[in-house]
């Protein structure tokens, strides 16, 4: 499934540890992600899945270990630097800007693609204006892709939770990333919306070849879509491999799936 055009992995985590005071959140996580690969990250609540994503986007600084993206060690960067390198993400707890409209949220996502400055913006002349128009067009493509036309001008705070999740996804894609981190994108979506979401994920994978790390609790979706599953518990690696094999693994059933593991 992984269309590795370049044998070097897109992203590589090597022995990542994360501590908060005495609390060990991540305990030596190592994983590789190939270009265009869809890796599902699963584990019980509080296992540290979100923390892995936070470490990659440098919102948390790993206590120990290396994170290498396209051959570059991320340690020296700032969170916005990481974003500019091409890593985008969605957020488990929403993370949208509630007082902005859908369109504005997307344009914030395209922040790094502008080339203007404060003075130009204030005068709104020349480059600033041309930029606005060009980026607006780019945002419109995203809106179309996610079928958000009818919500374009609405304030995000007034949208139902499900639509907000989609907007969050759209905003991440608007950044034109090469690596996309998805944190429970399906939470709060109904079946129908999950099907739409699956469609978006598949299209992104096939049309844009973006690598994705996908934290998810819906095992049906994971089973159907993921290329590979990585299971963790208490900040440590438990198992990884093919979906079918992992979901049948008794350890995974024990700590995570419970009796009805499918």
């Amino acid at each position, binding site marked *: 499934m992984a269309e590795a055009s370049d044998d070097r992995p897109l992203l590589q985590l090597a022995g990542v540890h994360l501590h908060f005071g005495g609390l060990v959140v991540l305990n030596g996580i190592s994983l590789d992600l190939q270009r265009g690969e869809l890796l599902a990250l699963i584990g019980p*609540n509080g296992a540290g899945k979100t923390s892995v994503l936070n470490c990659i986007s440098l919102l948390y600084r790993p206590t120990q270990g290396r994170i290498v993206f396209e051959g570059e060690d991320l340690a020296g960067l700032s969170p916005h630097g990481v974003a500019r390198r091409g890593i985008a993400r969605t957020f*488990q707890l929403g993370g949208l800007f509630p007082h902005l409209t859908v369109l504005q949220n997307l344009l914030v996502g395209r922040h790094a693609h502008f080339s203007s400055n404060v003075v130009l913006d204030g005068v709104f002349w020349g480059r600033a204006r041309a930029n606005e128009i060009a980026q607006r067009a780019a945002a419109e493509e995203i809106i179309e892709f996610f079928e958000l036309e009818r919500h374009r001008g609405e304030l995000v705070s007034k949208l*139902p939770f*499900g*639509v907000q999740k989609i907007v969050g996804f759209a905003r991440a894609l608007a950044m034109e990333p090469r690596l996309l981190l998805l944190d429970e994108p399906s939470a709060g979506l*109904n079946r129908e919306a999950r099907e739409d979401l699956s*469609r978006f994920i*598949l299209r992104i994978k096939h049309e844009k070849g973006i690598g994705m790390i996908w934290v998810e609790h819906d095992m049906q*979706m994971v089973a*159907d879509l993921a290329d590979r599953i990585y299971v963790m518990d208490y900040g440590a690696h438990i198992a990884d491999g093919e979906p079918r094999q992992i979901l049948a693994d008794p350890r995974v059933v024990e700590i995570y799936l419970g009796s009805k593991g499918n």
Partner: protein
Amino acid sequence: MSARGALLRLEQLEVVYQKVVTAIQGVSLEVAEGQIVALLGSNGAGKTTTLRAITGFLGVDDARVTDGRVWFEGRSIENQPPQLVAHQGIAIVPERQKVFETLTVTENLEATVPGAGTTRAEQRRRVERVFEHFPRLHAARRRLAGYLSGGERQMLAIGAALLCTPRLLLVDELSQGLAPRIVENLLERLVELRKELGLTVLLVEQSAHVALQVADHGYILENGRVVLDGTPQRLREHKDVQEFYLGQAGGGERRSYRDVKQYRRSRRWYG
């Protein structure tokens, strides 16, 4: 419906946001004492709005119940402030902002006011019970709740709601963000509690599988209207429910997420 009188009854409820957006219209439903009732609906159908109308959580968003009544134990409670509603024995696990982020986990539980006449010892015992059910919370009890993971927050919110010893528990998206095993436990626990304490539950749930598994009765809300209701059995057999909520292909077997059609435009309910 059950022969017993309804604990909660909504009558032709209408809620309007900011004086212009009508979110639900003519919603009527009943929850009988000791029942678990599921409220299903696609995103934006008005489920959260319905729960807010019951708990009086509407004011902040400049919304009002403009029509219809909410009856709880025979008293009408629409447009009452939340604390009054809470004192009548209605607890909620809200959809978003569910914990006090700047308090520790233990403080979150302590801040919850127990039902009348609860002794301190009793209260402490109940807190311990919450920790028993959610060992992860116990491990995190001294941490600020704002640092909890999404699932841990959900556990804490459920724990706190149960501490109130409510007569009616409203849950907005129970399984949201929880690992499958926990969801399973929780549902078992709800069934147990119902037996033990006669707890009544109104459950909003995205995963229709899960909800219909434990519910005694289900309602389906679309576009701010109730379009279908009945026993889980009846709902499960309905063609549209199968298609849109259970994800079953024509024959009854599960449809794969991989097979979603390109550019499928959903059919809408016009009940």
